């Protein structure tokens, strides 16, 4: 039966998907179906507006392993729109599903509306240099980033929950899985961020940024080079086109040049402040306020001034 289908292995994200899901379901006058890998998750989603929630029981629960089964299910059901939570695993799943449905897939959709029977959204191009409209014919698949939508309110009537046994793709053997050495911090939820770049000469110097962040009650973030090349901070703190996207109230960029690949991850911040010794660094064009100066001089002064 044609419908709007939503899935994310991350329950919080799955709940958020219901909001655009409900809007699309209404626009197309079709049911909203949530897919889940556990009973409790399915019941939660059924209680938040899904007309049906399907528990997929398989020997594996990873989205990639369920891709062929989900693709087959959606083909059978005749899905019109499939919304997948835009985690990395979700993106893998979504692409597989789109190939199987012979459908277009829009990545990182921040808004979705039906216009003339097609799904309309926006895309970022050229590492953040440009944006464009994107229109996808139905059936369409979309991946949606975390925190783009809020979860809906409880539904008056919970939807039906069913269980379905499906076959997982077991061609790939998972030998071990180590959780990411997370400091437990979610920088996408931070209200203020201090971001560091290659202006810092050595790892120990990040203490200056930490002091400042402490004084501001901000979290620490960084550019790709600091995380991936230097390994001074974990990858979860890296902001940029293949890292995190944030929109805090304050983004304080210290010793980073402000290349487009980085700025695309933070440009929706309410206020951007830059500290850099190079007056020509692109960051100053992207900032509301800036100080041209040596961060080794400016940071201690700023930290002290904020304490008063």
């Amino acid at each position, binding site marked *: 039966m044609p419908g709007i289908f939503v899935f994310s292995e991350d329950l919080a994200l799955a709940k958020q998907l219901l909001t655009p899901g409900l809007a699309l379901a209404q626009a197309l006058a079709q049911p909203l179906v949530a897919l889940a890998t556990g009973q409790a998750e399915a019941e939660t989603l059924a209680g938040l507006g899904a007309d049906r929630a399907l528990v997929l029981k398989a020997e594996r629960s990873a989205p990639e392993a369920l891709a062929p089964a989900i693709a087959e299910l959606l083909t059978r059901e005749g899905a019109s729109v499939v919304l997948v939570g835009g985690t990395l695993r979700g993106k893998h799943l979504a692409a597989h599903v789109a190939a199987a449905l012979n459908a277009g897939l829009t990545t990182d959709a921040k808004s979705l509306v039906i216009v003339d029977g097609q799904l309309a959204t926006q895309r970022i191009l050229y590492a953040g240099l440009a944006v464009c409209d994107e229109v996808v014919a139905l059936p369409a698949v979309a991946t949606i980033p975390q925190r783009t939508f809020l979860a809906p309110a409880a539904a008056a009537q919970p939807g039906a929950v069913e269980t379905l046994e499906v076959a997982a793709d077991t061609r790939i053997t998972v030998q071990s899985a180590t959780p990411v050495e997370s400091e437990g911090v979610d920088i996408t939820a931070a209200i203020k961020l201090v971001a560091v770049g290659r202006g810092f000469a050595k790892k120990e110097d990040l203490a200056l940024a930490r002091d400042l962040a402490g004084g501001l009650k901000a979290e620490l973030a960084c550019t790709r080079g600091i995380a991936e090349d230097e390994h001074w901070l974990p990858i979860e703190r890296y902001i940029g086109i293949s890292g995190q996207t944030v929109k805090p109230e304050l983004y304080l960029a210290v010793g980073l040049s402000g290349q487009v690949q980085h700025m695309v991850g933070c440009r929706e911040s309410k206020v951007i402040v830059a500290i850099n*010794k190079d*007056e*020509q660094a692109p960051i*100053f*064009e992207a900032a509301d306020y800036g100080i041209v100066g040596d961060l080794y001089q400016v940071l201690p002064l700023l930290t002290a001034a904020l304490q008063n």
Partner: protein
Amino acid sequence: MSILLTEEQELIGQSARDFAKEYLDPIVVDMDHTGQYPAAVVKALAEHDFLGLFLQGEYGGAEAGYVSLVEAIENLARSSAAVASIVINHSLAAYAIQRWGAASQKKDYLPALAAGSTLGGFAVFEHGPTPGVGASALQATRVPEGWALKGTKAYVRNAGVAGLYVVLACTDPAAGAKSLAAFIVSAKASGLTVGPLAETMGLKGCPVADLVFDNVILAESALLGGIADGNAIVTETLALASVAEAAQTVGIGQAAVEHAAAYAKTRVQFGRPIASLQAIQTLLAEVATDCHLARLGLRVAAQLLDQGEPFQVEAAMVKQFLARFGSKLLIDTVQVEGGFGYSEFMPLPRLFRDIAGTTLLEAPADYPEKTIAAALLA
């Protein structure tokens, strides 16, 4: 003959640019302050085949020709003129041996030069008059083993880091300027010492020192070319130097233009970026044009070299052009950047000091005007 590049030449230029960004940009400021020779960078240059670019394949060279050489040098110089100097002076020794060497000499010396495991230097200048114009004060006297060299060479680039030097010496004081001959001398030769490193105005990181020859004994096989070939070797090799240094100068100029243009766009005075001011636009336009025309001129000379045709006149022309406009180029860009550009914090002061080295030094045995006039008035 085309002044446009082949795809290979463009890719070589692009590779040199990528190499420069990766290996030179991070060290260039420190090297300018300390003058320390960038051994690790030279090793990387060798691994990327920059030190045997025009040498024949049978000796391990890339056989890429001289247009490739100047493309590489310009792109290296855009980041560091000092490193370009190291490559240029190595190339002069390699060129001389490939051009005039006997088969056995080429086999003995070119593979190490091509691989970069031996760096080369070209020792022609002295504290007195330039050899060829006047007699060389460095004497080469016949001895039973072959030759004995006595005297001093000055301003030898790559001195102390080179593994071999091509040295110009006087074989017959009575014959004066005409008795110039070239010798291949190992850096390890007994009696050869390197003087203290000169503290130069610019191009810091490329070592410059005297070579002192205290009765250095060389075998007969050390003679490069014929005993009367010294003048030809000097003239032609220094003509190649003119072309290569022109590429180096254009590289410095290009870096200056780009820096000044970027600066002019961001520097706001009286409510507008200074890039909107007529005076600034004129300065930038002139500097960019001088770079462009010099680049075309040196490419022509390099192409003639590639084709095995005489190129000294064209080389002299581009040397003369840059001697006049090279420094003006930097003066103009400093004018654009004003007090800001004047600060050592910025690249312009280093570029200014470097371009003084590439445009004002090393007049060839014949002044450029003489070479050009001689061709015109013949």
